[in-house]
């Protein structure tokens, strides 16, 4: 049994620590920089969202050109994320589970689209899939048009979004202990059954996070898309066109609607990926 003196001593120590932490310059510096970072992100967005009048927002959302561009932006980004999910999952799993010669090089190659300036991505895709390259000519022959098409937009968005999905899925697979897979196989499940019954249920949140990051990156892409497919116009290209042709006032409402639509969509996806009560 602690004595009253010990109790008060312990309490005093706790209070002392609290006083010490409140008086610490470290806390003030942390608070100041945290607030500065949050303001830096929020202020321009708030300014953009609050500037357009309700009337102009109402008018913009009834503009068929705006609606179709936002819709195009959202669905091409989601298709790009879906493609990344389907084609990227095996590679992410292999990288998470196996060590092999050249693995570091492959990981660096995967990160390349994050580092390359966006117009360079557009030019690179244009040079490979344009009419001047045999691959582009072949695609033309089979009826796949890349330049100035939805297909082209999806190709670009998949290219820029893939690293985000691959890295998130890879870290998800790495978080699943290999021993769980080994036990599953010892219990009679093959590789595929083990993946779908053990690995996937334990890593799908990472994968969904990767899909969200991939789609978010894709929906915000401008520099590469504008080179490969100016038309049909995705929302960022439409905003750019309205800004250069009519000024800030006419481009802002489009941006506001794109932000609202994307925010709603990504919040819904994030909600789905939250752990359930049982898992917590």
């Amino acid at each position, binding site marked *: 049994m602690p004595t009253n003196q010990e109790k008060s001593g312990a309490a005093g120590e706790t209070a002392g620590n609290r006083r010490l932490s409140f008086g610490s310059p470290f806390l003030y510096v942390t608070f100041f920089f945290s607030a500065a970072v949050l303001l830096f992100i929020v202020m321009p967005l708030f300014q953009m969202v609050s500037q357009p009048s309700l009337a102009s927002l109402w008018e913009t959302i009834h503009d068929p050109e705006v609606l179709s561009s936002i819709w195009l932006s959202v669905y091409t980004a989601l298709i790009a994320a879906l493609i990344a999910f389907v084609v990227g999952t095996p590679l992410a799993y292999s990288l998470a589970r196996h060590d092999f010669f050249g693995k570091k090089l492959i990981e660096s190659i995967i990160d390349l689209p994050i580092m390359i300036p966006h117009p360079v991505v557009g030019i690179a895709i244009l040079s490979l899939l344009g009419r001047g390259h045999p691959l582009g000519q072949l695609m033309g022959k089979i009826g796949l048009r890349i330049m100035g098409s939805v297909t082209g937009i999806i190709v670009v968005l998949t290219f820029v979004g893939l690293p985000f999905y691959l890295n998130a899925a890879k870290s998800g697979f790495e978080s699943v202990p290999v*021993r769980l897979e080994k*036990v599953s196989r*010892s*219990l*009679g*499940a*093959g590789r595929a059954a083990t993946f779908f019954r053990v690995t996937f*249920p334990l890593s799908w949140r990472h994968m969904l996070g990767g899909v969200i990051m991939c789609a978010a990156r894709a929906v915000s892409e401008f520099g590469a898309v504008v080179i490969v497919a100016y038309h049909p116009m995705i929302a960022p290209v439409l905003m750019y066109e309205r800004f250069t042709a009519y000024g800030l006032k006419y481009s802002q409402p489009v941006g506001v609607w794109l932000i609202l639509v994307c925010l709603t969509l990504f919040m819904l996806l994030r909600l789905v990926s939250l752990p359930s009560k*049982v*898992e917590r």
Partner: protein
Amino acid sequence: MIKLEQLTVKLPGFAVQDISLQVAPGEFFALLGPTGSGKTVILESIAGLVHVTGGVIRVDGKTITHLPPEQRRIGIVYQDYALFPHLTVMENICYGLRYFDLDMHQARQRVDHLVELLGLQNITHRRPLHLSGGEKQRVCLARALSVNPSVLLLDEPLSALDPNFREEIRRVLKKLHGELRITFMMVTHDFSEALYLADRVGIIRNGRMEQVGSTEDIFLRPANPFVAEFVGMKNIFAACVADQKIEFGGLSCPLSEQVICKQGVLALRPEDIVLQRENGFSDDYVHYAGVIEQIVPAGLWHEISVRCREACFKTIMDRKTLMMHRYNEGDAVYLGFQAEAVRVF
């Protein structure tokens, strides 16, 4: 039955080499060795979970060396449980039922029997996260046994448990083996676990098998200084044999039988050494005068170091005896042991 013929597994920076071993049907075999000696690699190669570089693995007469793990029907239980965290206890136990050609009614009966045998009735709906270490290990055992495996592999099943749960799982393992009579192969670094559970033991070091035999055989007749030390012979001295005597640390000890001293090592168990204040040893005891250097409490026992010339012997004594004789550090004593207790390598 498990039969390993010159099993070789090469991993980056480590290799298990030429392991040959036979485990009889229904036997409880323990594979012992220090950490990093390759015990788990051998276990996982039997389960098909690591790539085997050379040699042959047979189970019940069938060669399974390169068979995928899902076709082997060999259960494995890890020390860190490896329970599927997203499934309930019952879902974990029933995980493998669908993959084998089992009569579902019989399989269900088997699962119910295992649940009862392992005392899991009240936790079948719970998730592994909310279980104690002992409960987790019992679920692991039920899951591995639910598919009616021909062999059960246990990778240090008691290591991660608290002492209370360790005792409980030890009893459970003994009970399961007694009731199911399937072949158990356990990996451990604790010889006392093997003594309690196993019929036979294999000692492994640096990927090579040092000795295989009954627990009694290994305990009483270790094949080399490493095995001797591993099974608790704490008195190991450099020695040489001359004229039916063995000399070590400035001391001389008559040999009970003709021995060939190949490695020049003498080994003696601490519990074979007796201490006395006065020299009252009978003729069949070898004895030396010495001084107590150190007395260290070691659980239920005290470990006493006694220096006799250059040799420092270690013996053990229970607390009551120690108090009765009032031994203290620096006391002059006589130390003795029977010549038959000495092992020479």
